[in-house]
Structures are given as structure tokens and as C-alpha cells.
């Protein structure tokens, strides 16, 4: 890491207006933001980690229930959503790239694309959830154990809803952040010199993508070959 900060105070000439008073220069500020964001993502890893632990334990105990219940998920929709989310990661990466160039219109374009893709993902998720409600596969008092499956398939759906639900919540927050970015981009806030917010939201969005990259095989692809 940097050996402390550089001695030169920033009060001298042209301090950029985005520079907060307590940082030495823009680079120190950018570095702190990036580190902060990464550390935040660490907390997110462990946040989801609690549920992954529960998943691992119960899947080991109730393998057959999990495999059977997993086969009740709509693989087509799940795979489609995976593709959508990967594509949204691409547009997000391009938005960050556009931000570094300071190309206002491109930023807005790519961010809009990302929002649309994120919205598509959530829309498909709503369809999937609705199917579960219709089939009484939502855990709780109205749950009906699917035919031919052990009773513990309810546990799979408990975890399915918790994990995808929290993931979807992260998507919703992400879309909110993207809208905020678009507003700022249209105002012309982002320049080659200052585009940290785009960068940070990009990190967040990619992280949410990574979570899904793991959720997809763990939830949708269990025991498909046994059919």
C-alpha cells in the first residue's frame, strides 16, 4: 500500500471540486473509495455466506429432496436469466469504460441498457416466483409437498426463496444506484478525471452477478442427469 499520503497539501492551486477536503489529492480519494467498496463486498460475501453454509449443510443431509425440488425449478427461465445477467455485466463494464473516457452519452446508453437487462432479470424472477405460488411450492403454511418428493423439499424452497430473494433485493438496490448514476451522468458529473461513482457501482453490479453465477448451478442444476 501507499506509504501514507503525500506530503503536499491540496490547498494550493486548482483543487478539483469533487475532491473532499480531507484527502490529499484525487488519487488518494479514488484509492480510498475503491478499497472501501472492495471491503464492503467482503461483507457481502460473508452475508451470502451464511446462507451458503445452511445450503451446504442441508443439501448434504437431504440430497434427494434437494435434487427433486431443484428439478421443479424452470431451467429455461433460470438459464435465460443467467445469460441476461452476464450481458448486463458486459454493459456495466462498458459503462465504466465510457466513464473513464468521460463520454456522457455512452455512459447513459450503457447504464440504460444495464437497467433494462436488470429489469428483465427481475421480471423473469417474478414469473418464476408466481409459478411457485401457483404450485404451492412456497414454504410455509400453504406448502404442499410435491408428489414423489421427501417432505424436506420444503427446506430447498426455503433456501431458494431466501437466497434468490436477497439476490433480487440486491438487484433492486443496484437498479436504484444505476438510476442515480444516470441522473449524475446527464448532469455531466463524470469526466476522465472523476468517475469514481460509476466505477464503484460497477463493482457492486458485477458482484451481484457473481453471486448469481454460483446460485444458478447450486439451485437449478441439481440432479438434472438423474431424470
Amino acid at each position, binding site marked *: 500500500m501507499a506509504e501514507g499520503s503525500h506530503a503536499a497539501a491540496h490547498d494550493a492551486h486548482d483543487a478539483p471540486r469533487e475532491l473532499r477536503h480531507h484527502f490529499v489529492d484525487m488519487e488518494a480519494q479514488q484509492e480510498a473509495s475503491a478499497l472501501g467498496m472492495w471491503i464492503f463486498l467482503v461483507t457481502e460475501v460473508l452475508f451470502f455466506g451464511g446462507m451458503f453454509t445452511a445450503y451446504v449443510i442441508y443439501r448434504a443431509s437431504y440430497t434427494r429432496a434437494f435434487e427433486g425440488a431443484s428439478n421443479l425449478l424452470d431451467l429455461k427461465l433460470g438459464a435465460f436469466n443467467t*445469460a441476461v445477467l452476464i450481458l448486463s455485466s458486459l454493459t456495466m463494464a462498458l459503462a465504466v469504460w465510457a466513464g473513464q473516457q468521460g463520454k456522457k452519452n455512452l455512459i447513459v446508453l450503457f447504464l440504460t441498457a444495464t437497467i433494462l437487462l436488470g429489469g428483465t432479470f427481475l421480471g423473469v424472477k417474478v414469473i418464476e416466483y408466481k409459478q411457485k405460488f401457483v404450485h404451492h411450492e412456497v414454504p410455509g403454511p400453504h406448502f404442499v409437498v410435491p408428489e414423489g418428493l421427501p417432505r424436506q423439499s420444503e427446506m430447498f424452497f426455503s433456501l431458494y426463496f431466501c437466497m434468490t430473494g436477497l439476490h433480487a433485493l440486491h438487484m433492486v438496490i443496484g437498479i436504484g444506484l444505476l438510476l442515480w448514476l444516470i441522473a449524475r451522468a446527464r448532469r455531466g458529473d463524470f469526466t476522465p478525471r472523476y468517475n469514481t461513482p460509476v466505477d464503484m457501482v460497477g463493482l457492486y453490479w458485477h458482484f451481484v452477478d457473481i453471486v448469481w453465477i454460483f446460485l444458478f*448451478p447450486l439451485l437449478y442444476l441439481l440432479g438434472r442427469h438423474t431424470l
Partner: protein
Amino acid sequence: MRRNESDDTHGHGSPGAYFAVFTALMVLTAVTLWAAYQHLGIWNTPLALAIAAAKAVMVALIFMHLRSSPKLTAIVVATSIVFLAFLILITLSDYLTRPWLPIYGR
């Protein structure tokens, strides 16, 4: 440890690299779907997870610019993985060793 300033790509990726990664991610998604239907014995899940991990690494390295980030960032990421492993593996060790000591009586 600061990035070089006047780097053409700002030390970050370029659209070309992004498209390449995107293609690889889509291909791997297809592979994992295909693999899920193969009879691989106990290896279905490990393979699916390995593919997921490969995809995650690509997203992190290229999309998230981890490759061109300071070393500290890599340490931060590694820490999260190590502690996640502590949580899962140590908890699992309890469950896996429970049947080791049979409790008999008469």
C-alpha cells in the same frame, strides 16, 4: 503502489477484453448446462462449481479490474474467501464427524 496515470486504458480493461470475457462466460454457461445432464457420478456438482468459480474469477479479474488493482485489493478478496471457507468448512466438519462416535447402550 498507485496506478500509472497516463496509461492508455487507465490501467483498466478495454471493450475488446470485455467482449472476449462475455463470450467466454456465455460459453461456460452453455458448458455447465450441458454438463448437468451428464452422468458424472459424484463429480456433477464439483464440476458445476469449478465452472462457476472460473466464471467468477473472470468477472473479478476483467470486469472488476482486479487484475490491474493494487495488491491490497487482492488480499482483501482473498481474505473474504478464506473466512467464508472457515465458516463453511468448520461448520461442515461438525456435521461430518457426528456419526464417528457411535453412542451405544443397552
